[in-house]
């Protein structure tokens, strides 16, 4: 698969621009579902690495994916696409925000959009899990990550620092001698 710098820029610009309420669903939708730059598994493993590095996961993934296809220039194209276009939109919103924020219809529309955006994120996680067909260990680790961050409100950094090494050790043990 060959993806040009322009395609990287435009693809990530789309992810940034449509990423209302969070870019994770859109990143998977564009990269795996729509453009098929990467398989579900390749994408998930880049996301896993992006998650343990400091910084926003999608930004880290954009760097790794851009570098994968077009080296340093590709990494730059991807991250600029992801950040520049939504920043322009954000400035536009900031300029009119005070005038429209008080309108009740805007409030309900935003509330409904936020509820759907939450569903997009949950649905993306379920879809990825379904398509990756994890073994029992991976399911338990994934649920532990969900429960600690989502239900017990453990800081995400702490959850990753504890569960990451455990999960890697479990994968290593499973594959020993194979």
């Amino acid at each position, binding site marked *: 698969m060959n993806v040009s710098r322009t395609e990287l820029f435009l693809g990530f610009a789309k992810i940034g621009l449509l990423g209302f309420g969070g870019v994770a669903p859109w990143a998977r939708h564009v990269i795996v579902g729509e453009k098929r730059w990467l398989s579900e598994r390749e994408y998930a493993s880049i996301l*896993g690495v992006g998650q343990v590095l400091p910084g926003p996961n999608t930004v880290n993934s954009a760097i790794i994916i851009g570098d994968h296809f077009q080296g340093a220039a590709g990494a730059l194209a991807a991250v600029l696409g992801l950040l520049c276009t*939504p920043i322009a939109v954000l400035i536009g919103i900031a300029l009119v925000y005070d005038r429209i924020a008080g309108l009740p219809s805007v409030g309900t529309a935003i509330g409904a959009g936020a509820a*759907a955006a939450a569903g997009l994120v949950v649905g993306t996680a379920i879809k990825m899990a379904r398509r*990756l067909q994890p073994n029992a260990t*991976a399911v338990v680790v994934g649920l532990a990550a969900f429960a600690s*961050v989502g239900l017990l409100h453990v800081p995400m950094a702490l959850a990753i620092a504890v569960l*990451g090494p455990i999960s890697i050790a479990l994968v290593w043990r499973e594959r020993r001698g194979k």
Partner: protein
Amino acid sequence: MNELLQQLGTTFAWLSLLQFGGTNAVVPEMHRQAVDVYHWMDAQTFVNLFALAQLAPGPNVMVVSLIGWHVAGLPGLLVATAAMTGPPCLLAFGMSRLMRRAGRSRWLAIFKDGLVPIAIGTILASGWIMASTSELSAMSLGITAAATAFVAFTEFNLLWALGAAIALGLGAHAAGIG
């Protein structure tokens, strides 16, 4: 002005490397720096900027773009955004190069496969948190559930789910039940 830009640059450059698990990990410290240490803004303004960044499309890290804009206009936006994303991007690029050099090493595969369930579990958790912190009404729960199923079990464009939710919200508002 130059002093402000320098404050923005140094503050966000070191905060950027503490963003384990995403930008939200450093929001409390960001709040302390912006409100208590440098007096760039009052607490209410910080909360408003944060809400605006959540609402707008794009990665969560863009809250720093808004802070930079608020403090020092366009130069502030550019300095704050570059400081917050530059160091993690360089780290991610270094990691990307390390992974390319490791190629198909067995250890890299174990490392990556161990992190996948955690990435998916934490995405699920962030969706769950988004759903549970938004207004809990029968309509918003229904929208979240429908959007979840739509994404989990189809590959249709995610805009359909967002558009339908916003139309439903506006319709309910017009009918006087939202």
